[in-house]
């Protein structure tokens, strides 16, 4: 029994069957990659996991709890954090404030006023946020405004914001899309370090095979809205079905 169990999930948009009968089980403390050609339904699947979309059929269970019908913020509180394709941070806030918000969210669980309180009194949360920032090597940038940072730094900050919540499952949606080579390598190194030093399950959607093969323990290949094969990276490399799925795509292009 994995930490995340997806059973028979399907989703239609009008006449288009985006997902059909998806079964997926992600084991605790592994890195599980989901790959597939464009339009395979990777993003749709991810959106079904975090509550942005509601599947038409099937079930999604996280750590024994069904996530279906829950709002995105409730699902996050269950312990699923999401990193977006384009880094989603609070661009108008400082790096430190960006970190404090997930700290509050984790501690309070839901809406709390804290209207007259002083930020300086939250020493425990501040220490936690600073520790996390130094872990990802961004402590010296803590007073910078989010929008002033490079894309790589934004990504790093976003990952730190997710990690400071100590999620059980971290979802990464093409974390290196649109990045320069150096930034990509930094991100891979960071993710490897996270994988080795923390008790965390990571699910990653990725296009870049270099990223996938350097991180993943298991890989699911999605094609036309349904899982084609699930195996270890080494076996996936030699699988003819996978080649066909990708080659089919290149021929169309």
């Amino acid at each position: 029994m994995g930490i995340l169990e997806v059973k028979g999930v399907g989703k239609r948009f009008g006449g288009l069957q985006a997902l059909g009968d998806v079964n997926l089980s992600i084991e605790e403390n592994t890195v599980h990659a989901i790959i597939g050609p464009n339009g395979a339904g990777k993003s749709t699947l991810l959106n079904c996991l975090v509550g942005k979309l509601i599947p038409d059929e099937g079930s999604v269970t996280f750590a024994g709890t069904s996530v279906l019908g829950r709002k995105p913020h409730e699902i996050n509180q269950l312990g699923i954090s999401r990193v977006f394709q384009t880094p989603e941070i609070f661009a108008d806030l400082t790096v430190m404030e960006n970190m404090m918000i997930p700290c509050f969210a984790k501690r309070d669980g839901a809406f709390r006023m804290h209207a007259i309180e002083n930020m300086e009194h939250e020493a425990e949360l501040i220490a936690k946020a600073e520790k996390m920032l130094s872990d990802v090597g961004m402590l010296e940038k803590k007073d910078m405004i989010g929008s002033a940072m490079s894309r790589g730094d934004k990504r790093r900050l976003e990952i730190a914001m997710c990690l400071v919540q100590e999620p059980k499952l971290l979802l990464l949606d093409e974390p290196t899309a649109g990045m320069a080579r150096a930034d990509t390598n930094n991100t891979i190194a960071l993710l490897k370090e996270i994988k080795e030093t923390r008790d965390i399950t990571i699910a990653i959607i990725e296009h870049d095979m270099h990223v996938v093969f350097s991180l993943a323990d298991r890989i699911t290949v999605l094609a036309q809205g349904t899982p084609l094969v699930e195996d270890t990276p080494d076996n996936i490399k030699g699988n003819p079905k996978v080649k066909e799925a990708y080659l089919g795509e290149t021929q169309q292009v």
Partner: protein
Amino acid sequence: MFGLNKKDTTFLLIVIALTLFTPILMQPFAEGSGLAQFNGGYPDLMQKVAIFGIFAVGFNILFGLTGYLSFGHAAFLGIGSYAAVWMFKLLTMNVIPAILLAMVVSGIFAAAIGYVSLRRSGIYFSILTLAFAQMCYKMAYSVLTPLTNGETGLQLSLDDPRVLDGASEGHSLPVTNIFGLPMNASYKLEALGHVFTFNVGFYFSAVIAIIAFYVAIRLFRSPFGMMLRAVKSNQQRMTYTGLDPKPYTLAAFVISGMYAGLAGGLLAAMDPLAGADRMLWTASGEVVIMTILGGAGTLMGPVLGAGVIKYLENIFSKINEGVLHQWFSFLPDGLEDLVIWIFARFTGEGWHLTLGVTFMLVVTFLPGGLIEGLKRLNKRIKGGSKKRDKYDDPDPEHRPEPGKHVA
């Protein structure tokens, strides 16, 4: 001090000092001198500045921090006034229960209206708040006449019960007071050829305004204030961080509604009548103008905006052609007439034209408002790059992202 950092404390102390010495500061020109029309019309004008300052500071908590542009905040001002006048009629002429009730009632209305309006954002939110405010306005004129006294407006009358004050004596209406000290009492002091007036009503409004301002500073610097800025910055990230933005925006809406109610209650405390005109959408537009003019999202901006607009309104409406003739009498005749004609369009009756033009200029060239203007000026004078306070830094990044283009 007061749980504020050093900078904010200094800031607050300056505001307090300015307020205390207002009667002296606002009368720089001796009575009867040619420049006397530039004296701030104390105490009426200064009361208005304090009260509308409260209104704008409250509006800024919603608009400046969360980016939700409400076009119906005047409704809460009007509701506050009605509630306060009812308190004067039924219970006592003491202003304390009246403004408390004003805040509670407008808070309840804000909770209901906010709960519905905040289900939408962007222009839809603006239109919803506008629709609710217009509804309140129209209902005050029609169905709710028993409560609002329709077009005449709600006023005191001799046969009001006033349970706590007992039967009214004599044939004149009682005046609002604070524990027996009448609001319209003034103490005059003559010195240096000037007459300085210390007015109870003004000091009362000023003390309330300072408290309101202090609360706003605390709120801006608090984790709650940070959450509100996070709502403005990126709701998607907020949701995926496990926080529902709605209760935060609703809390901000209710707080700013209560500020508006407080301002409305104070208006009634200074002059115990309430009319539906206070709820008209142009009144809502006015508080938006004040906030933007000063600088939305900054602490001092709304107060500055309220002060500038109320001061200019007072001064400009007082300048008539006679005054202009005095000023420009040194010019040759034909030129004098031309200059006076131009100035006359913008003064007196033409005050609204000045307001509109100022407003357009500020939005076009100084989107951060006067605070940003002062900052730029300061920077140019000093030439150096001082470390800036992020709260008072209305850089373009701080403003709401332009809405998605029509897709």
